[in-house]
């Protein structure tokens, strides 16, 4: 998942689930629900979505709108352990694991009252997979799974005929109005999670074409997006619909009167685009916002405030952060050298001194709260003596290492974290390394070209809680999209590819565990911390189901349909 600022957060109890209740363990009775005109909630989305077309959304602050206005075939359960029926009532997978047949929900309607048909699903998927529209989430989720989509990269996007040929060859079919069939290239045990991504939504062809002023060739890149510009033409099948968009200021969601699952309690959800976390914090205190992320600088203030501390909620995110070594450069090609750096960061001290003790130290890849979390391998644990010995064993001197720099994005948070980390290396390994702080865009263009020594903190937030989403990062050929260090891991690709397509879940887990051990023991990267969220939520907001996959300052955004405001 694309990380919003530079750092996001995670965890929780083993379940990964928090239910925030307004009235404590006793539950909420209908008596203390606020009146319908008081069922209004104001939250801070931080940044305006770049698009209201769900297929074009890539960040959580965009998806928070997309997944409430549109509904996918399946969705995650509250615990994040499995999928549950949503836009589809049920689905079945053929024995060879190649054909997914979705029985669509009967009675499902669009917000303008028309029935959702299989043709809408086919159109939505084709809209997503149209290479001319270059949606950010097609690769690697859909082009590597859906039959025919592997040619995604080779389509000449200037020719409508080439695009049409590609789209009609895809394994997407609507044998009848209530059935949607997806055929895969190869078995993929994780595909049920892929269809939970907000980008895989149905879209109304008639609405798109009407907004565009008629039909258009598939190579057109602007007309297919006109519908997503105005609240009136954003017709969705989700529990809410958009009633108002005030650019750069806020977007308002109201119940979709035709939603199959009944009316929600919330009559209005206003998502504000307030970039400054301190302003949002002030607006929470003056009652203008009902939930916020606490700015790091104010964490201690909240902890010591008798009233605010009761409204604080800490919960984990499925997000891990790490430091990347350029394994294409000597001496970082040596696992011993990388391990020496990994073992000389005192993560607990880092979290305490720099992060107000919100994040949790981690020595492994998969975050707490999803299958695959395993803290038994302590190979990267803090041990300066062992770290020094490793450097000696590798025959690397301080003089060699001192010329390397830690590449840092010029945000306050990244600078503070990296200054601490580089100090740890200097003190524990007897070095005199420096930070190299430059603007974010330049950092990205440099790491894409492999032009760095050490870079971080970089991380990953789960798109869905399946391990495939994580382990594919370190494929040899994905060297320049997140595996910046291009570390050499013999046998890793074959093992992970086998686990990705394996249908037996136990065998998958075993293979992924082996892969994780390899990442840790080879110090592919130095794992540092798992992200946690520190939010304030007004006590009268009830029935929120907070999951580790929520947007950072929009707690419970996957289950707002069931949340409510109590009398206050």
């Amino acid at each position, binding site marked *: 998942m694309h990380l919003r600022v530079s750092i996001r957060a995670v965890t929780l109890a083993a379940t990964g689930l928090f239910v925030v209740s307004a009235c404590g363990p006793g539950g909420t009775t209908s008596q203390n629900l606020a009146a319908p005109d008081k069922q209004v909630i104001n939250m801070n989305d931080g940044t305006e979505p770049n698009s209201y077309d769900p297929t074009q959304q890539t960040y959580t602050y965009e998806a928070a709108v997309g997944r409430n206005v549109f509904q996918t075939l399946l969705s995650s359960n509250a615990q994040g352990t499995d999928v549950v029926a949503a836009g589809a009532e049920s689905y079945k997978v053929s024995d060879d694991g190649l054909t997914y047949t979705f029985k669509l929900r009967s009675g499902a309607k669009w917000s303008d009252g028309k029935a959702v048909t299989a043709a809408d699903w086919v159109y939505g998927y084709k809209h997503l997979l149209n290479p001319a529209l270059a949606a950010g989430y097609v690769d690697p989720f859909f082009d590597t799974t859906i039959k025919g989509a592997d040619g995604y990269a080779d389509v000449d996007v200037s020719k409508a005929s080439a695009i049409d040929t590609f789209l009609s060859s895809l394994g997407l079919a609507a044998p009848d109005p209530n059935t949607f069939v997806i055929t895969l290239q190869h078995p993929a045990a994780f595909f049920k999670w892929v269809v939970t991504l907000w980008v895989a939504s149905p879209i109304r062809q008639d609405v798109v074409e009407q907004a565009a002023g008629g039909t258009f060739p598939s190579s057109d890149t602007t007309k297919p997006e006109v519908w997503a510009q105005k609240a009136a033409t954003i017709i969705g099948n989700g529990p809410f619909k958009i009633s108002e968009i005030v650019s750069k200021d806020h977007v308002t969601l109201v119940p979709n009167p035709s939603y199959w699952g009944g009316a929600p309690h919330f009559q209005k959800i206003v998502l504000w685009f307030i970039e400054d976390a301190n302003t949002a914090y002030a607006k929470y205190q003056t009652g203008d916002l009902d939930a916020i992320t606490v700015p790091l600088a104010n964490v201690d203030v909240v902890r010591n405030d008798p009233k605010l501390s009761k409204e604080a909620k800490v919960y984990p995110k499925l997000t891990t952060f790490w430091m990347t070594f350029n394994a294409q450069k000597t001496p970082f090609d040596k696992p011993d050298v990388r391990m020496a750096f990994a073992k000389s960061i005192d993560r607990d001290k880092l979290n305490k001194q720099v992060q107000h003790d919100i994040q949790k130290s981690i020595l492994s890849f998969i975050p707490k709260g999803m299958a695959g979390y395993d803290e038994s391998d302590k190979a990267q644990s803090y041990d300066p003596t062992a770290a020094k010995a490793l450097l000696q064993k590798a025959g690397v001197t301080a003089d060699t290492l001192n010329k390397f720099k830690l590449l840092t994005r010029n945000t306050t948070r990244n600078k503070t974290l990296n200054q601490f980390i580089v100090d740890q290396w200097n003190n524990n390994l007897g070095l005199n390394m420096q930070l190299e702080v430059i*603007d974010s865009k330049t950092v990205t263009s440099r790491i894409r070209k492999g032009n760095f020594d050490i870079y971080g903190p970089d991380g990953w937030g789960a798109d869905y809680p399946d391990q495939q989403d994580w382990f594919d990062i370190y494929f040899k050929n994905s060297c*320049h999209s997140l595996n910046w260090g291009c570390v050499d891991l013999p046998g890793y690709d074959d093992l992970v590819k086998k686990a990705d397509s394996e249908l037996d879940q136990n065998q998958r887990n075993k293979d992924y565990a082996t892969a994780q051990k390899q990442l840790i023991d080879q110090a592919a990267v130095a794992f540092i911390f798992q992200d946690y969220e520190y939010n304030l939520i007004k006590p009268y907001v009830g029935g929120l189901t907070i999951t580790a996959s929520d947007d950072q300052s929009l707690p419970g955004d996957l289950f707002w349909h069931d949340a409510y405001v109590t009398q206050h």
Partner: protein
Amino acid sequence: MAVVAGRPKRGALLPKRVAAVTDSRLGSLGVYVVRRILWMIPIVFFVIVITFVLMHSAAGSPWDKAGGRQLSQVVVDNLNKKYGLDRPVFEQFLLYIWNVLHFDFGLSYQYQGKSVLELIAGGWPYTATIGVLAFLLIVPIGVGLGVLAALRQNTRVDYATMGFATFAASFPNFVIGALMIVFFSVLTYGWTGGNFFLPAGGWGMDDHLIMPAITLALLPIAYTARLTRASTLETLRQDYIRTAWAKGLPERLVVVRHVLKNSLIPVVTTLGPTFAFLVTGSVIVETVFSIPGIGRAFVVAVTSRDYPMILGTTVLFSIVIAIANLVVDILYVFIDPRVRLT
């Protein structure tokens, strides 16, 4: 002419002061204005050239993300094709100029399907409203305080006024904005039990405007006050002022008719660029008070390398500044009888 550090210098656009007064002062004004407006065409053109070159030489592409997984090369290539970035830069430039001549400033890369003109038209009213309000504060307060301090030079009034100006000029506006929010929103909310407080940011044509306008105005008020004080002191020492006093004119007449008319010339010079600066927005004020204006949009466009949006806002800014300078030059004709525009 006194130019205070930190204010934009007017430089080349400064009109020549001609000592000799000729009889066709106002007659040549119309021709002058038309010529200056025509001059804006090459000015905007060169602004575009420079912005284009700088923009494309800055590292990073519009499709890079600020962390996490990056878009795959396939998607990046398709996006480049979609927005014509796969063509040679010179060709992109010619195409852009051609489109601008047809009033087409292109589509934003960041906001899918939104045109640059639409984004600017959507955001500028917010920015301009705050800017005009701030300007309305600057003229009476800044000039008033400056004159007051000069007339009461070396008294407590003078020290208090200049102390305030130094304070306002040296506190960065993000600090002032944040402190005002804490004081007038959060603390006041607590003291009054939520009955009275100023909104901590957001938009509304009501008390939402108070804190942003004051925050934006403070620094220019400080500069204007200091500049007015300095030039008023200088004017007060002129012989003709001594003559006016000697004639026994009342203070009000001396100040308004004789002193101000001359001492305000340098102030008017700076008010033009100040006005342009205010109505084109401040990223800090707009961020702290969460105002959906174009000051913030411009900075976001730069950091996200949203090329069409960068060019669109830069062109707008250059036009606004050119017009503000022109207006100042015209005002001279009315303020200073010695000035002739040629």
